[in-house]
């Protein structure tokens, strides 16, 4: 009997031992990884540290775009103790009081989802709004810190900067302008903070820790001069209002380096509220909108003709005594006045279309096309902004005789404002075409990458550049009765281009422009100002006075003393 009991006990121990071993095998081997992960999730707290997005600084190191703390508001439905419709209404009255019904419906739709235990309700909410929501004392609502873009200068140079939105995965991404072009440099790399915690969630000092530092996004320092940009935007807006134009733009570039000192366009938008802005305003017209340049194109055609040696400044036009008939078209001057035997300089002074047809014919279609390509017309300038577009030049085989005539005075060809600024900069820069640049330095914690001026090619000789400069100075001094800054030699040209609509030109709707550079002997800036559909249709009456008004301020801000 005793033996039997002993045997039973032994068997029980054996079975128990086998069960224990089997269970241990199950825990250690079969479910080992799963249990280890579960234990780690209980012992450790992991937090992804978002990398700070790089700032965008002006040339005086003032942050035009920086970051501010914002909050994600989320709901945990299991903990909500309020009717969802009531909650949505209360939240909307704080988040978006102007669109209560619309926002309320949106929030309610999110709250009604049964498949989620954590529902994000609003992103990138300001501190003030977060405090207002906290005052509502709603159980089941929580906040998570995040960063959002902050614009200390408001909407200054919005279309050049672009904005930060979300990609399909809900992560921050830069769109348009500098934010879009330099998104990879600006965004940085997130870090990881892993810490062992005790039962109440507090960190254990001697526990296991892992710190993977985040890599902050790089700061970008622009060539943009804050004072000039501010002044340019103010003056441009005043000009648009004064001349009742539908819009306008202005660019200031340093001809010797290609540095963009200022760039403004209106109508514009506020990048802090891009979600509610008109999406058609996101693209920057300076780099993406093509237009027929009109007479501001004449110095480029004249430069080509002089460089090719087919005309010289004192040559006289033998076909300038009246309108020119080309096929079925009649080419006339803008004011109906004709100047027989005009010199080439006088053709630019009078902005004589008939004279420019003569120059174009002397140059020939093949040469004209080659020079336009050399001046960068029809090709992207390579500016470091996202969204550059261009209208390619038509091939020579597609040209008809009237094209040579109209292109000579800037109609029938499409350019972007930045292309024309770059082309005229080549004249100001002694004949060398440069790549325009917005960003001067890319800063990391330990080094600074500096962008250097990039010469694309030589377009005309230095001698031709000097001749054209003098002709443009004459066009300013004798081409109109403008109030110019005293003591400075300015080279420039006005332009009025009719807007093509449904196969013909609308005589009432024009784009008026003025492009010029100064001081003519040692150019420090090239500036283009254009206005779309002003009440007064001629550039000489609208945009030229505005150009001189702005240039007066520029001389002051750039510290350029008068010469005489």
């Amino acid at each position, binding site marked *: 009997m005793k033996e039997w009991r002993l045997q039973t006990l032994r068997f029980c121990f054996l079975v128990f031992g086998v069960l224990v071993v089997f269970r241990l095998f199950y825990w250690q081997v079969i479910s080992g990884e799963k249990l280890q992960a579960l234990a780690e999730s209980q012992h450790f707290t992991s937090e992804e540290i978002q990398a700070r997005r790089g700032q965008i600084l002006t040339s005086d190191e003032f942050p035009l775009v920086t970051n501010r*703390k914002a909050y994600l508001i989320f709901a945990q439905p299991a903990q909500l103790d309020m009717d969802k419709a009531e909650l949505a209404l209360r939240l909307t009255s704080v988040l978006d009081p102007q669109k209560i019904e619309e926002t309320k419906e949106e929030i309610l739709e999110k709250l009604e989802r049964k498949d989620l235990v954590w529902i994000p309700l609003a992103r990138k909410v300001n*501190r003030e709004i977060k405090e207002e929501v906290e005052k509502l004392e709603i159980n089941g609502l929580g906040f998570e810190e995040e960063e959002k873009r902050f614009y200390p*200068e408001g909407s*200054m140079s919005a279309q050049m900067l672009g904005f930060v939105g979300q990609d399909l995965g809900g992560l921050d991404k830069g769109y348009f302008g500098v934010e879009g072009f330099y998104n990879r440099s600006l965004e940085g790399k997130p870090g990881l903070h892993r810490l062992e915690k*005790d039962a109440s969630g*507090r960190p*254990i000092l001697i526990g296991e820790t892992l710190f993977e530092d985040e890599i902050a996004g790089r700061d970008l320092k622009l060539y943009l001069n804050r004072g000039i940009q*501010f002044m340019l935007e103010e003056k441009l807006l005043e000009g648009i209002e004064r001349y009742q134009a539908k819009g306008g733009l202005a660019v200031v570039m340093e001809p010797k380096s290609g540095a963009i000192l200022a760039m403004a366009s209106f109508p514009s938008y506020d990048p802090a509220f891009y979600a509610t802005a008109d999406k058609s305003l996101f693209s920057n017209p300076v780099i993406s909108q093509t237009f027929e340049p009109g007479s501001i194109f004449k110095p480029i055609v004249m430069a080509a003709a002089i460089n090719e040696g087919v005309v010289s400044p004192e040559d006289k036009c033998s076909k300038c005594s009246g309108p020119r008939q080309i096929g079925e078209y009649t080419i006339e001057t803008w004011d109906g006045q004709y100047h027989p035997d005009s010199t080439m300089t006088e053709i630019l002074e009078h902005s004589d279309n008939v004279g420019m047809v003569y120059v174009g014919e002397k140059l020939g279609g093949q040469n004209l096309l080659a020079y336009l390509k050399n001046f960068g017309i029809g090709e992207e300038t390579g500016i470091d902004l996202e969204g550059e577009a261009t209208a390619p030049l038509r091939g020579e085989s597609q040209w008809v005789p009237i094209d040579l005539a109209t292109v000579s005075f800037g109609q029938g060809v499409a350019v972007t404002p930045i292309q024309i600024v770059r082309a005229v900069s080549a004249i100001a820069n002694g004949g060398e075409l440069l790549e325009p640049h917005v960003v001067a330095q890319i800063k990391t914690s330990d080094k600074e990458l500096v962008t250097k001026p990039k010469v694309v090619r030589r377009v005309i000789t230095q001698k031709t550049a000097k001749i054209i400069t003098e002709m443009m100075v004459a066009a300013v001094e004798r081409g109109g009765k403008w109030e110019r800054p005293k003591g400075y030699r300015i080279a420039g040209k006005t332009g009025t281009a009719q807007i093509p609509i449904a196969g013909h030109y609308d005589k009432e709707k024009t784009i008026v422009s003025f492009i010029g550079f100064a001081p003519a002997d040692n150019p420090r800036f090239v500036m283009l100002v254009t206005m779309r559909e002003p009440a007064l249709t001629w550039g000489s009456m609208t945009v030229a006075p505005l150009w001189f008004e702005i240039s007066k301020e520029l001389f*002051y801000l750039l510290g350029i*003393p008068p010469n005489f």
Partner: protein
Amino acid sequence: MKKRTIYLIFTLVFLLAVAKVFASARLATTGTALAEIETQSQSLSGQNLFLEEEILGFSSLVRISSEAAKLGLVQATKVVGLTPEIPIALRGSY
């Protein structure tokens, strides 16, 4: 001699054990202090960011310009360019 050594080892082990208990007790409460310091540090960083924001807002040209207008300041209408004085050594050549 042998007995004395055993006694010494025992005392040492006992003292070390007591020290470990004290150290562990002390470290266990340090976690709370650490959490508090972290919260404080986060709060100060938050305040710092907020103050930076305020400084940027106050030093923006948009703000300065509107404040200047409120104070009745107007833009200079006449700017005089000054040329540097000619050094005495060079004046004789004139």
